[in-house]
Every structure is written in C-alpha cells, then in structure tokens.
C-alpha cells in the first residue's frame, strides 16, 4: 500500500498528538499555537506538492486522492490556519484547556480532509463523526450557560442527523449491496430502470442521505440548530463551523452524488430538482429571518443558511447537467456545476472568515455581539470596519469582491442548464440580503460612536483579516487562476 499519498493526514494527526503532549509539559501556551500553525502549513504544503500527479485510491478504495480531494485539503488547512490566527487573543478567555482547543481544531480539520477524500460510505461516516465530535466539544468551550446549551443542542441534533444519514446509507447498501461509491454507481447502472422505480428503498435512502448532509451544510429545513449554536459558541469556533463544516458537507455531497448517484440521468435529474427546491427555501428563509436579527453572530448564522441556498443552486446544476456526454461542448458543461460550487466555497470561505475575524476583534474588546454596539466603529477601528465592510459587500455579491464572481459563475452555469427560474429567485434573494448586510455597514460608518475610545487589536488577527481581504479582492479582480483550478478539481476521480 502506498502511504505517500496519505502524508497530509498523517502530518496533521501527528501534530495534533504533539500539541496534546506539549500541552502537558509546556507552560508557554503560545508555543502550541506556533506548533499547530506549522502542522497546518506542512499539511497544506504537501497537498499543494501532490497536485497534478496520477493517483490511485488508497486503503482498499476507501479514500481517493485526486485533485478534488487535494483542493479541499488545502482549503481546510487554510481555513484552520486563519481560524487559529484569529483566535490569538480570544483563547485567553479559556482559563484552562488552551492546548485542547488547538488539538481539537487540528483533529476537526483532519476529519474534514478525510471527508473530502472519502470514496466509501464507511470511511465517510467515520470521518464525518471525527469532525462532528471535535466540533461538539469546541462549541461548548466557553463553559458558560449559553455555550453549554449550544453544545448540547448541537450534539443532540447532530446525533439525530447522523442516525438519519446512517439509515439512508443502510437503505442504499441494502439495495445495491455495495458501500464503495463507484461500485454503488455500477450497481445502479446495471439495474433495469423499472426495477429501480419499483424499489422505493433506493429513493428513500438517497432522500435520507440528503437530509443527513443537509444538517451539516445548514440547509432549510435542517437549519434549526444554526442560530443558537452560532450565538453560543466561541466566535472563532462559529467562524470555523460556518466555513469549514459547511465546505466539508458540500465536498462530501459533491463526491457522493457525482460518483455514486451520478448515473443514470433520470436519477441525477431528480436529486438535482430536490436540491433546487432546498435551495429555494434555504435562500428565502435564511434571508428573510436574517433581517430582524439584532445580534451580529445570529445574523451571520442566518446569512450562512442563505449562502448554503446559493451553493445548492450549483448542486442542482450538477444534477441536471449529468447527461451522457456526446460532444466536447457537453463534456465541458458537465463540470460547470461542480466547478461553480468549488469556486463559490473558496470565495465564501475567505469572505465569511474575514467577516468573522473582524467580529472577533471588535467583540473581544466591546464584549458584545449586538449590531447596535457597532455604531461608529468606522471612527473607533477604521481598519477593522473597512475589512468587515469589504467582506459584507462580498457576501451580497457586489463587484469588485470575490462574492460577485462566485455568484456570476454559479448563476451563469445555472442559466446555461435551463434553470433560469432558480436564478431569478436567487437574484431576488441577493437583493433582499443587501438590506441586512448594508445595515451593518451603515451603522458602522454613519452611526454615532458610543465613546471616542479606540478599539485596539493585536497583530495575528489583523494579519488574518488582511489575508482574507486580499484574497477577496484578488478573487474578485483576477478570478481566472482559481477558476481553472476549480475546473480541474471538479473532474473527480472516476472508479
């Protein structure tokens, strides 16, 4: 067996163990931060170095090492890197357990990396639980009333979602007799269409799996945990949840629905329509309920539900564009949905992280998450306010920010695949979302400052915010490079 292809994961696991060990003997806790950052840099660097080789599935077809997995490994390492940088000041709120905080973030990242690489229902479930259990603990890290409540809610609802997912996986296994994604696909292809229509177990299995993953990506109607958990969790963990956990969920949906349920066309068209429906209600519910929110973490929580809705437009495109390819033009359009989702995820990760880093830096000093308290922040902390403004503009999807390009690619792919009605609903929702995003901008720049006191911030979060804003601008102005990478990554490993 070829362990070379498994180096990013091994590195990350080794560093997580190293952090736990060092935490026991070292008094200087900032050393742990440097060690975790070093681990993430190595894991991400190895993923970059592995790009472009020709790869085999490892561990008995349990994991696939392809461009898709490598892209997401780099993305997750980058997200965790920025989250750890951003929590430099925040960790002092945890009187104990700083070492555990870093170790758990590394382990959750490891789980997400495995999720992106998984090619088997069993390894899928194991990696999903590795991520989830680490996150359950992280959400409760503040140990106050709200944080504990959030953690308990997340644990209970997450357990239900896991059960639903397992039930769906069991039904799919029962019908096809396989757990490996490629084998499931060939088993479904070999059935007569009538036999598949005659066995509702497969359809129910697929729908239950969508429900289980819907919880991870916070799609309506599986979103009820989002506001409370986002509000109660430590803010860096909220940032990590809203970006990392969501990206991992989408990675796994892309992988499974492309590799296992991608053929025949009438099946993929039907789950494409399920995602289109979920996209519509996610966008509408997320945007409309975000409007009256007074707490910025809750507002960003609802906004992340709406963003999941836009992302699911891409999944719908993937479903309806899975026609058997005859010409080269068709072959290209087959991957537009995936490439659009991957590009959107990368730009959303930078944007949302940027917004949360600004919120962490500001709220850490104010000790409040209320939007009203951000009044006059343009004078008190001009750089943080500028960064937050840019990220909010990107979340609306206005040029020159990355969000505009991401929405443009995704929606144009949808229009080319005859989903114009979906794009119209999405654009109307983007306009609605401008109201609550711009309200924060208005409060920050035109509101009266409660005091003239400056809001200071330390170097590490500033650097993280700078990286995010730079990324948002670069992706908005020259998106070509990442778009090409996304197109390569979208052509997943076939079995």
């Amino acid at each position: 067996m070829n362990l070379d292809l498994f180096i990013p994961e091994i590195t990350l696991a080794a560093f997580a163990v190293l952090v736990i060990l060092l935490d026991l003997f070292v008094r200087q806790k900032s050393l742990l931060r440097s060690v975790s950052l070093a681990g993430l840099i190595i894991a991400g660097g190895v993923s970059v170095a592995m790009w472009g080789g020709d790869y085999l599935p490892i561990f008995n077809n349990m994991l696939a090492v392809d461009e898709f997995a490598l892209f997401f490994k780099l993305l997750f390492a980058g997200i965790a890197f920025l989250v750890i940088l951003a929590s430099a000041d925040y960790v002092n709120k945890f009187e104990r357990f700083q070492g555990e905080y870093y170790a758990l973030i590394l382990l959750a990242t490891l789980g997400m990396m495995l999720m992106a690489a998984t090619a088997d229902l069993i390894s899928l479930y194991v990696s999903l639980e590795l991520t989830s259990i680490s996150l359950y603990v992280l959400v409760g890290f503040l140990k106050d009333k709200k944080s504990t409540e959030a953690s308990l809610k997340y644990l209970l609802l997450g357990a239900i979602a896991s059960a639903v997912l397992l039930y769906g996986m069991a039904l799919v296994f029962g019908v096809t007799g396989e757990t490996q994604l490629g084998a499931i696909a060939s088993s479904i292809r070999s059935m007569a269409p009538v036999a598949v229509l005659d066995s509702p177990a497969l359809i129910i299995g697929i729908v239950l799996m969508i429900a289980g993953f819907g919880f991870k990506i916070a799609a309506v109607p599986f979103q009820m945990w989002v506001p409370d958990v986002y509000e109660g969790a430590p803010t860096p963990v909220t940032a990590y949840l809203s970006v990392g956990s969501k990206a991992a969920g989408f990675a796994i949906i892309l992988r499974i629905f492309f590799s296992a349920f991608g053929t025949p066309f009438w099946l993929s068209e039907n789950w494409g329509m399920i995602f289109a429906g979920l996209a519509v209600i996610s966008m509408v519910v997320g945007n409309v309920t975000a409007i009256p929110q007074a707490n910025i973490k809750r507002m960003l929580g609802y906004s992340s539900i709406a963003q999941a809705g836009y992302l699911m437009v891409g999944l719908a495109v993937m479903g309806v564009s899975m026609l058997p390819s005859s010409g080269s033009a068709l072959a290209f359009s087959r991957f537009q949905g995936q490439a659009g989702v991957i590009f959107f995820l990368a730009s959303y990760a930078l944007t949302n992280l940027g917004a949360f880093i600004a919120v962490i830096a500001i709220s850490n000093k104010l000790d409040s998450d209320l939007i009203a308290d951000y009044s006059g922040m343009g004078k008190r902390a001009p750089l943080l306010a500028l960064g937050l403004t840019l990220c909010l503009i990107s979340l609306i999807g206005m040029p020159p920010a990355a969000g505009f390009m991401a929405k443009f690619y995704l929606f144009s792919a949808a229009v080319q695949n005859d989903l114009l009605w979906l794009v119209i609903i999405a654009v109307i929702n983007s306009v609605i979302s401008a109201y609550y995003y711009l309200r924060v901008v208005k409060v920050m720049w035109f509101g009266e400052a409660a005091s003239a006191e400056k809001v200071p911030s330390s170097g590490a979060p500033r650097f993280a915010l700078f990286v995010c804003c730079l990324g948002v601008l670069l992706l908005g102005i020259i998106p070509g490079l990442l778009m090409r990478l996304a197109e390569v990554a979208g052509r997943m490993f076939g079995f």
Partner: protein
Amino acid sequence: MLASYGLIGLFFVVVLVFSLTMVVIPIILRFLKIVPSHPNPVKNSTFECGMETIGKTWVQFNFRYYFYALVFLALDVLVIFLYPWAVQLRALGTFSLWVVLILVFIVFIGYLYAWQKKVLEWK
C-alpha cells in the same frame, strides 16, 4: 418483491405461534396436575444464587466514576484492535507491528493526559 416480504411474514407467524405455544404448555401441564406444586421460600426468591441485596439497588454512584469509565473505554477499544492483530501476528509482518505500536502510543498519550490532568486522583 412481494414474495420475499411474504417469506418474512411467514417467519413472523412461525415466531408468534412458537412463542405462544411455549408459554401455554406449562400452564396446560399445571392444569392437568402433571407438574407438582410445592412452593418454598428458596424457590420463590428472586435470585437462586449469590447474596440477598441489602437495602435498595437504586443507589447513586459518585459522578467522578465517569472519568474512570472514559479511561477504561480507551483501553477497551485498544484491546478490541489488538485481538485481530494478535491472531494474525505472523501473516501481517513488521509493518502491522509498527501500526499497532503507533496505536498503543496514541492510547498511552491518552493515559498520560489523564494522569497529568490529575483525573486519577480522588480528592
């Protein structure tokens, strides 16, 4: 499709009939006076062996035992992984020896963690 579900239904019927018969047989034998009825205190006691319980069994355990339960769980899982390896020791070779050593090392760190965080001390 329906035929295979029918088979399950048939199985269900057999299960019902069998278990009902098993319950009814002793009652019928009792009515026919074939089974003798000589009750005594030992026969009527709940446990046929072991100690009689003193007081109620619904006592509270100290919450702190949950640490020990967690530490025990780690060891338990380790043993489950060690068994199949031990059975196939020769066939798996040195590579798997290293894998198992790494696994033991990780569990060992768990113990070290518990020890260092004073979980094993009863204050």
